[in-house]
């Protein structure tokens, strides 16, 4: 009896084992199918298959730089993509765009679409400028206005055009002020001479007042001579004051012109420096956004890459394979050569 019972027990254990495996496989299969469905769902959601969109279009002169599927951005966020590009009978290019409906309230009916480039080495994107808000939110099948971003060389030329008059103005003002024959320098020279003459006259008058005191004590004859001298001195003083007055009048007449020129120059410099700042920070609309953003985006790209590499290096098991970083020293070479010191323990 026990001889039959033993194999029966083994068979029943095997059956139970097989049942367990079958249950485990079913669970695994269900989980796998669920994961696959979820992945497809996430992919579809990411691709915008489940997003409600509105169709808008615009007309461009050329399809250069545009392609089906390219991103449409609003203040840097992707809000849609190009659905179709076609040519109309009058040789215009009709670009149909699908916009995510949730951004509808942020884009106005008079919004403008602009072809821009993401940095100098980046791809083209269509950028939506929201509009004034007077026409309300954008509607389905709306036709938007399109503009093309000026090329970088045109922007640079525009900038140079702005700066050139400033330099010319500054040069003109400097020449005017520095010219020895110019009214300004002559007026200053005259004023200097007149001032020197006044100083001399003042010294003479002091002497005269002193001698007047003495004169009263002496004879009347001497007093008359002194008065004659005083009269002469006063005439000299009057002449000096007249010269000074003339010089000051000239200066007075010249100064408004100088001030105006200076004002203009300073304003031009301000405008030019604003433009340069705009270029540098990428805030200059419609001018040289590419050049302005290049540095910032390049730097961000490098920073991101560094961050990714750092993260990868610190992740198991890579962190065990990468040697720890240390300050590298140049060896003291008695011949004046430059060579690195080998890491500790290598030599």
């Amino acid at each position, binding site marked *: 009896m026990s001889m039959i019972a033993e194999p029966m027990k083994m068979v029943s254990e095997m059956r139970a084992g097989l049942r*367990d495996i079958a*249950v*485990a496989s079913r669970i695994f299969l269900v989980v796998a199918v669920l994961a696959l469905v979820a992945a497809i769902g996430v992919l579809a959601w990411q691709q915008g298959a489940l997003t409600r969109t509105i169709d808008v279009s615009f007309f461009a002169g050329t399809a250069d730089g545009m392609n089906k599927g390219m991103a449409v951005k609003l203040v840097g966020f992707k809000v849609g993509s190009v659905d179709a590009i076609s040519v109309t009978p009058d040789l215009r290019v009709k670009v149909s765009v699908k916009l995510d409906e949730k951004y509808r309230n942020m884009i106005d009916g008079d919004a403008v679409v602009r072809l821009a480039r993401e940095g100098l080495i980046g791809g083209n994107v269509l950028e939506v400028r929201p509009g004034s808000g007077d026409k309300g939110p954008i509607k389905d099948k709306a036709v938007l206005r399109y503009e093309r971003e000026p090329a970088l060389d045109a922007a640079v030329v525009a900038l140079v055009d702005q700066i050139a008059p400033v330099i010319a103005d500054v040069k003109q003002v400097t020449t005017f002020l520095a010219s020895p024959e110019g009214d300004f320098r002559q007026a200053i020279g005259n004023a200097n001479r007149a001032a020197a003459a006044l100083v001399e006259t003042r010294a003479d008058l002091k002497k005269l007042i002193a001698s007047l005191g003495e004169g009263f004590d002496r004879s009347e004859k001497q007093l008359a001579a002194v008065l004659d001298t005083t009269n002469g001195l006063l005439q000299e003083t009057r002449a000096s004051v007249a010269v000074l007055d003339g010089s000051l009048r000239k200066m007075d007449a010249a100064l408004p012109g100088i001030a105006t020129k200076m004002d203009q120059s300073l304003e031009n410099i301000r405008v030019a420096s604003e433009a340069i700042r705009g270029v540098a920070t990428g805030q200059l609309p419609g001018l040289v956004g590419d050049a302005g953003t290049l540095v910032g985006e390049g730097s961000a790209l490098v920073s991101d890459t560094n961050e990714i590499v*750092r*993260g990868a290096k*610190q*992740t*198991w*098991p890579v962190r065990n394979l990468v040697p720890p*970083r*240390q*300050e*590298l*020293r*140049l*060896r*003291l*070479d*008695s*011949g*004046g*050569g*430059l*060579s*690195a*010191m080998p890491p500790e323990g290598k*030599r």
Partner: protein
Amino acid sequence: MRAAILLVAGLLAPALCGCGSVPPQSDTDARRERQTDLGERAQRAIGRGEVGRAAGYYREALRIAEATEDFPAIGVYALNLAATYQALDEAALAQGALDKVLAEPARFEQPLVVEAAGRRALLALQARQLDTAEEWLGRAERDCAPASCKAQVALQNLRGQLLLERGNAAEARAVMVGALAGARAEGNPEEEANALRVDGRAAARLGEHGEALAALNRALDLDKRSGLPRKIALDLIALAEVEIARGERAAARDYARRALAVSRAGGSKRQQEEAQRLLESIP
């Protein structure tokens, strides 16, 4: 069994997540990483022969280290900066960088201070300020404890150069015997070539031209293998001087021309002038 599988999976998943996660980086870590990164860039720039660029990287790394009073890093980058300035023939700037270590030696590790003093002696030697060189070399030798000091062979070579400059060629050769042995024992081809050069020059002074040429040619061979233009030019100049002493004008002219070409390509103005002077002095 199922429970066991679930348990293992449950434990394994967070463990794997933990292994795969990246710890957050603090500002100090970020600064130190930037500093090290600059140091590595400088090394690569030196490898490409862009010494000026390397100096720029070291300057920035030193600035970051100084901003956080990271003394070990200040020591390393000050020394590296001094080495690059020296290679650029900017002796005053090199001295300024070394002063960061030599002015407050207590803040830095002894090997760094020894190297700084040694490099200061080398700068003085290059400027023919023999007494100053003697003073700094003496200080470096005094502080160089044999067990931990890695600059011993370099200091011996500097001592040999100083003796040679002072006219003690025989003594210089005696010192070079030890330096050569030390360099070979360390497996340091750069210092071996330096020792051979000093030995060759000393032999030439003593009229042993055959030995001088042999030593200098071996030095040239080693320096070529290391790819160090500045030192190749030094070897060629020394060879030209030996040939002049032997009366071999054509060979001397050839070496001097090669030295001029190498120093031009290597970008060393001082060596160019030296090679040019030598070339013009050959009748």
